[in-house]
């Protein structure tokens, strides 16, 4: 009996995982931070965003659905007590558009910062522990800078999202989760790295909101 208990604790602690067969074979509990995209939640080892960690989202261009990937999460978090911080977004968030996705804009704070202050501001927000999620668009971020963000996210128990260009995919990253967004021929997400699980071989299609 004791051997069975030991194995399940190992699996729970995510020190051992069962490779590719696991998602289908095991009925997993819902993650603490679901992404709001059922197909994506199903392939991620934590059943959603890795908690209190940095997630990196790599994109080919602006405007390919990168916000829609996180907006269900932001909508959920904006109903909580801790605000969501946007550090130096590349464009102004459109209030009407975000509201259509269910985000309460009163819980969204926008921080304008010069390029060299972005990482400092992001780290401060993450470390403070009073933000639910921090979204950043760092221009110059190396391995060390991202590691600092990862540590800050952990100490502040916040979700960190870094949106970066696809060319950074070649470089190693300390992020707990790396997603690559593809726009053509259809919108889909590649999981490039996920801590505590095997990287799925297939991309996850993203059905963006119908527009009429």
């Amino acid at each position: 009996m004791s051997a069975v208990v030991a194995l399940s604790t190992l699996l729970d602690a995510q020190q051992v995982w069962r490779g590719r067969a696991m998602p289908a074979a095991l009925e997993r509990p819902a993650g603490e931070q679901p992404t709001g995209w059922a197909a994506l939640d199903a392939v991620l080892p934590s059943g959603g965003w890795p908690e209190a960690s940095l997630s990196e989202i790599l994109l080919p261009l602006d405007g390919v659905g990168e916000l829609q990937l996180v907006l269900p999460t932001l909508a959920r978090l904006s109903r909580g007590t801790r605000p969501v911080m946007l550090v130096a977004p590349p464009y102004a968030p459109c209030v009407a558009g975000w509201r259509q996705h269910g985000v309460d804009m009163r819980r969204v704070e926008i921080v304008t910062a010069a390029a060299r202050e972005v990482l400092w501001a992001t780290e401060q927000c993450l470390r403070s522990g009073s933000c639910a999620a921090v979204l950043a668009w760092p221009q110059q971020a190396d391995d060390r800078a991202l590691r600092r963000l990862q540590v800050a996210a952990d100490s502040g128990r916040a979700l960190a999202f870094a949106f970066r260009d696809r060319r950074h995919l070649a470089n190693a990253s300390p992020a707990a989760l790396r997603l690559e967004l593809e726009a053509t021929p259809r919108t889909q997400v590649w999981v490039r790295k996920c801590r505590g699980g095997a990287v799925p071989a297939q991309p996850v299609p993203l059905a963006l909101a119908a527009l009429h």
Partner: protein
Amino acid sequence: MLWACVLLPQLALDGVLRRRPTAGPLVLVAGAAQARSIVAVNAAAREAGLRVGQRLSAAQALLARFEALPYEPDAVDRWQQFLAAVAYRYSSEVSLLPHAIVLEVSRSMGLFGPWPRLESMLRSDFTALGFRHRISVAPTAHAAYVLAGVDDGQAVLTPEALGRALQHVPLHKSRLPTATAAALPGMGVRNLGQLLRMPRDGLRRRFGAELLLALDRLTGETPAGLDSFRPPDSFGLRVELSHEVENLAALVFPLRRMTADLAAYLAGRDGGVQRFLLRLEHRDSVTDMAVGLLTPERDAGMLFELARGRLEQVQLPAPVLALRLLARELPPFVPAGRDLFDERPANALPIEQLRERLRARLGDRAVHQLGSTTDPRPERAQRIAARDDGAQEPSPRPTWLLDRPIPLRGRGPRILAGPERLETGWWDGGEVCRDYYVVETAQGQRAWAFCAPGEQTGWMLQGWFA
């Protein structure tokens, strides 16, 4: 009534030492230029044989190198006022005596706990500010003042014990008028106990009513008759630097002291500060830095961090000679409430403090929220700090909005939805007449773009459905 007395034996010296800490011998001198004499010495100078009252020339003969600074009576008054404001935190009845502060504590003990605890709070406050002190407590203000001069830490809590405590106080420490204290030993009177037993009529005939009044105040027969101290409604502090400072890093130490003083003062009057001015004085100009906060605050560490954040962005036009901190508006301080079932981590920085920290480094307008207006024109549909009314827009709206429309490059985009015509603003000069479409570019981006009514060329990009 129970009075605590905080005696400040080295007020002038401590005031100097806290802005220029030194281990070497240092003395304060006063008097005419030819006959300057020492009025205060620090520990190192005392070890070298320098004494209060010595002529400066005699001191120079004893010790080759020591620092001699002028004694400034104004500075002493200022420090005493400042410390009285700090002590005001513990009592609403604070008065000033020469080199001492007395405060009525019988009612304060209900709030702060019994005397030993209150005493240790007072001591830690004064120690943190860098002032040496002796503290005593007695049923009358003047008795506490006398006892603090005799020995540190005397606590006389009842009127009966006061009589016994005063018995053995030698006359030269009794703080009676000097002429009286000098004449009495000649009559065989050496301590207060003997003096208090003498017939009053005889004393009045010999020394006048003044002595009897002083004795009555000591024993509590007559009210103390002290002016009650009221803390001023603004805070000002100036620190002269010991040399010309060209490097901002050298200003950090005095700045930390100044903000700590401000915080101590604010705690004393239970107020906060929302706006203060930091002035760097140069030889013939000044540099002003206004530090503004969103809500009144009084935490020393936070005030220091904010002031330093502002200071780091300053370009010094000339060397700095002195620093001044001015706070005119001191609104009431309301501590932030916290929820028992707070989901934040235990060591979380409150969101207000995070905002202040970001604003201090990134600028006053760095942190904001967006809200929608009732204007349908995308350029005016949202505003910083507008009230968010939560009204739903029926037509699709993008998630990113460009500040101003730019031409959409590339080949003709594929139309996904539209048109939605916006025709408005003829009354305020910002007239628009546009057909909005949701389009997809060849790279797979989804854009919110418009063109002139009826045409489907000349696309202008307004936002992204990111």
